[in-house]
């Protein structure tokens, strides 16, 4: 079975992290975003993953070679010469997708959830039509495009963009399974699958919706990345509580890489991910943060709702809050206050940033 992952462009929304590493390789809860998806696909029998990328990255290629070996599957990069939208990449990869008549998965690369691939296969086989899209419930449907479908069968009737009057609270979750027949609908040109392909399929009663159980988050920007982390850690609490760290200095769901060191009199959590080789000195308070591999946090600092990029270094008595994102190898000097700062890689910060801004 095959899967196509729509990786797309530079991942600018997740800058400054994506200035150092292609978005699929950014660590989410101590594992590259892409591997969360790929590993779940492998579990349901996918043996060939195609990444649709609109830019080339040597780092991505090399990492995918490693993963091919580790997972024993094939990973291809399908490179768009020009951005092809969300449908065009299917046409570009047509030859690979048509190698056999099995249905294939298509995924947006920013989605984190309990991937329901097994259920999708079963559901898709059961209705026997061209496509299945996963939908998830949202609180404020007026902000999204919603999906209207028959409750019993899941047959999609229509899509409504940003509805002002309530018609549905289910939105497209960015995960699909298609039969190869869908490829006849798509030309090799920039095309939106949501706007141009799905409505036609719905009209012809070829598209079904399957509701996602459990959490779902598009982690394409820092604020949502942190929210997604909280949801993911909560699901780890339910399914694999032994992965989480416990002890008098840990509060709630905290993931600590075995190679990380945490000092005395700290208070870590809830909702914290600490990466490989991270050092947290004594008396540090961290809540709702991701600390990436190799970072160093000096004593008595206080961090809330931050992403600390790889190999960054935070001084003593530093306060970081309000979705401060540090790129790779950023140094924050002692006793500073950063409020919602977005710091580009390799910067040394020697003055406080009391109001949110970008530090070039």
């Amino acid at each position, binding site marked *: 079975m095959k899967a196509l992952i729509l990786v797309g462009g530079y991942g600018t929304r997740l800058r400054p992290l994506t200035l150092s590493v292609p978005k699929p390789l950014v660590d989410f809860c101590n594992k590259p975003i892409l591997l969360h998806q790929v590993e779940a696909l492998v579990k349901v029998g996918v043996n060939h993953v195609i990444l649709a990328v609109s830019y080339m990255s040597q780092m991505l290629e090399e990492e995918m070679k490693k993963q091919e070996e580790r997972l024993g599957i094939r990973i291809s990069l399908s490179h768009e010469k020009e951005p092809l939208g969300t449908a065009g990449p299917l046409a570009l990869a047509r030859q690979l997708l048509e190698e056999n008549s099995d249905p294939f998965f298509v995924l947006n690369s920013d989605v984190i959830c309990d991937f329901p691939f097994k259920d999708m296969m079963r559901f898709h086989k059961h209705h026997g039509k061209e496509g299945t899209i996963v939908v998830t419930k949202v609180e404020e449907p007026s902000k999204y495009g919603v999906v209207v479908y028959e409750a019993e069968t899941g047959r999609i009737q229509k899509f409504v963009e940003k509805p002002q009057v309530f018609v549905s609270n289910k939105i497209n979750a960015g995960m699909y399974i298609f039969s190869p027949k869908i490829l006849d609908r798509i030309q090799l040109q920039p095309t939106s699958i949501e706007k141009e392909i799905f409505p036609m399929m719905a009209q012809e009663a070829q598209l079904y919706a399957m509701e996602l159980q459990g959490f779902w988050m598009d982690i394409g920007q820092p604020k949502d990345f942190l929210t997604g982390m909280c949801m993911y850690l909560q699901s780890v609490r339910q399914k694999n509580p032994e992965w989480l760290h416990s002890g008098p200095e840990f509060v709630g769901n905290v993931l600590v890489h075995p190679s990380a060191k945490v000092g005395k*009199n700290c*208070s870590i959590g809830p909702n914290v991910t600490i990466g490989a080789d991270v050092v947290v000195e*004594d*008396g540090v*308070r961290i809540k709702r943060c991701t600390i990436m591999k190799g970072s160093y946090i000096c*004593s*008595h600092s*206080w961090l*809330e709702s931050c992403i600390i990029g790889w190999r960054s270094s935070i001084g*003593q*008595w530093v*306060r970081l*809050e309000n979705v401060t994102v540090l790129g790779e190898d950023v140094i924050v000097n002692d*006793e500073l*206050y950063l409020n919602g700062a977005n710091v580009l890689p390799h910067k040394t910060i020697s003055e406080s940033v*009391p109001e949110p801004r970008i530090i070039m």
Partner: protein
Amino acid sequence: MLKAVILIGGPQKGTRFRPLSFEVPKPLFPVAGVPMIQHHIEACSQVPNMKEILLVGFYQPNEALNKFLVVAQQEFKIPIRYLQEYAALGTGGGIYHFRDQILSGGPEAFFVMNADVCSEFPLLEMLDFQKHQGDTHSFIMLGATANRTQSLNYGCIVAKADTQEVLHYVEKPSTFVSNVINCGIYLFTPAIFQHIGEVFHRNHQQPFLEENINGWQRAEMIRLEQDVFTALAGHGRLYVFKTDGFWSQIKSAGSAIYASRLYLDRYNTSHPERLTHNQTEGPIIKGNVYIHPTATIHESTVLGPNVSIGEGVTVGAGVRVRESIILHGAVLQDHSCVLNSIVGWDSSIGRWARVEGTPSDPNPNDPHAKMDSETLFRDGKLTPSITILGCNVSIPPEVIILNSIVLPHKELTRSFKNQIIL
């Protein structure tokens, strides 16, 4: 023999020092660990032949002042009395009203100084200067050099280059007059009262000449600066002694932190015993730090530079304090961080809380720069200043209080930035 008068003002003055002046008369606010005017008294007590120090002001007699007088008299072994004006009489009116008290015993000269200045008090040099510039009946004012812009906020002195005779004096001019400014520290002979008396009598004859905001001007209200010095200038009686030593006004709470820094630095020579030094088992001290002997400081804290910690203060593990004054009874809990702030009496700061202000120091690259006279608001916004916690304020754990002023007896429950919290 000599005397000294310290003009301490009254409760209606020093509003820029709120909310700290709610709890203690401003002249008793601790600067570098001791009451502001103790620095004056100590300097006076070191002048040979100094027989008495008089505090003149319009505070109601109060316990804090009485207690201070008792302790200071014991410590400096000199009589110190408080003379209470019946109303705010101005810098000249107060001493004129109490001229008999000042002149009793027949001093040949006396110092007059404003309480809200911090200085090296070069009193002996002023006496020397008076002796050596020829006329022993002359009046001497202490002058300092300011930069052109800031000079406009002070009394400006034009002096004759060779003799230092004051040729012209103007208070807070609107255009540049001179970069030599009045420090509010004077050496007078009893003859000064004739000159103040002239103003007094003139005011009595023409009491409504100058209207103040109330539409009424008390004849006894006399200002040394505008009423006396302006008239004295150019008559061969008033001279300026220029000092290069440190000097600053203490108008706002922000300037108290700056003044503390100046005095703490001076302790290196004048009172090394008041400064804390690094010991193997103890807090890390950076620069000049004063710690009251009764304070409890955890060995893992880092203090300084320019930190004064008052009586009975408790500082927990892993606390950081820099450029701040911690008043008596305050509690700083573990991992908290206090920068550019004044923490009021019996206030408490929770774990990992951050209390931070913006320093309002003079430009360090200009040797003549002074504190800018701070306005609380600019363009309708609170100007970033030091953070001040009034008496008995409680800051919860993990919040930040930035550039804010918290009035006494408040229990905060969240972070605040750039606000006055009533």
